[in-house]
């Protein structure tokens, strides 16, 4: 069986139904372990003091803000190339979750920045590209809501998603491109030398896993809702015509 058959709406509803509760429970468990571990059982940092505890929510939410857009980009490309409706609906479903993650990253970053940098906000490359990413999320959601024809909406939002991907990538690599910013480098990296100390790293990874699972659970539920809403709309049209 081709992998694309899993994107058939009926089949998608079938295989995701048992997955949602499993992902939800795992997400809740990983978030609880990661955040409780990080908040209650890790030491203060010698420079940042107790504010280091913000890392367990700020870093995972920032990573998910970018990765949600990457997921939307992949789903949009699948829509453009193969015209699979479920992929367009999955991209639409992911946008509010990604936007919420962006808001969390921006707010917790501002709260963390105030005592560390002496300011809530700076026009730093990473902060600025993140703010633009947030505006792209807003525009993407607004465009879906504003266009009545679902295929036209999927086409135009896919193009917007492609353009916004520049800022998603910039948000991730801005620190490497421009060195004059306030924001530090990556906290999590494949290069062990760049990582935070192990005592912070392990609960941070557990919390990150929790955010990823939460994202997956929410996107699946929201995609299922979008599929149902599309079917409901079709039935409504049929009833009005007949």
């Amino acid at each position, binding site marked *: 069986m081709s992998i694309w058959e899993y994107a058939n709406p009926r089949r998608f509803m079938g295989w995701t139904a048992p997955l949602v509760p499993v992902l939800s429970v795992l997400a809740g468990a990983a978030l609880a372990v990661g955040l409780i571990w990080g908040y209650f059982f890790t030491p203060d940092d010698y420079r940042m003091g107790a504010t280091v505890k913000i890392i367990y929510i700020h870093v995972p939410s920032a990573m998910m803000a970018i990765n949600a857009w990457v997921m939307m980009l992949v789903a949009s490309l699948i829509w453009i190339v193969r015209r699979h409706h479920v992929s367009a609906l999955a991209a639409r479903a992911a946008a509010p979750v990604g936007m919420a993650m962006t808001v969390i990253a921006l707010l917790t970053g501002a709260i963390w920045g105030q005592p560390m940098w002496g300011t809530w906000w700076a026009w730093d490359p990473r902060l600025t590209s993140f703010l633009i990413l947030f505006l792209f999320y807003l525009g993407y959601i607004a465009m879906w809501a504003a266009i009545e024809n679902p295929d036209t909406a999927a086409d135009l939002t896919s193009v917007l998603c492609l353009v916004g991907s520049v800022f998603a990538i910039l948000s991730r690599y801005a620190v490497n491109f421009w060195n004059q910013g306030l924001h530090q480098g990556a906290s999590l990296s494949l290069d062990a030398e760049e990582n935070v100390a192990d005592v912070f790293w392990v609960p941070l990874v557990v919390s990150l896993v929790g955010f990823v699972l939460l994202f997956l659970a929410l996107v699946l539920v929201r995609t299922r809702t979008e599929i149902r*809403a599309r079917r409901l709309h079709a039935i409504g049209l049929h009833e009005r015509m007949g």
Partner: protein
Amino acid sequence: MMPELGKYAPEVLSAYALTLGLIAALVVLTWVRARRVKRALDAAEARRAHG
């Protein structure tokens, strides 16, 4: 048990409260809309089956 947050207590607590509040709101809104749409679709399918 409670960590000593010292002078940074307002920052740490407000960051956690904001995050947990936003995540809770996102989960509740997702769940409420999912239930509402499912109920409406079930009703529409039933109308279709009987009409």
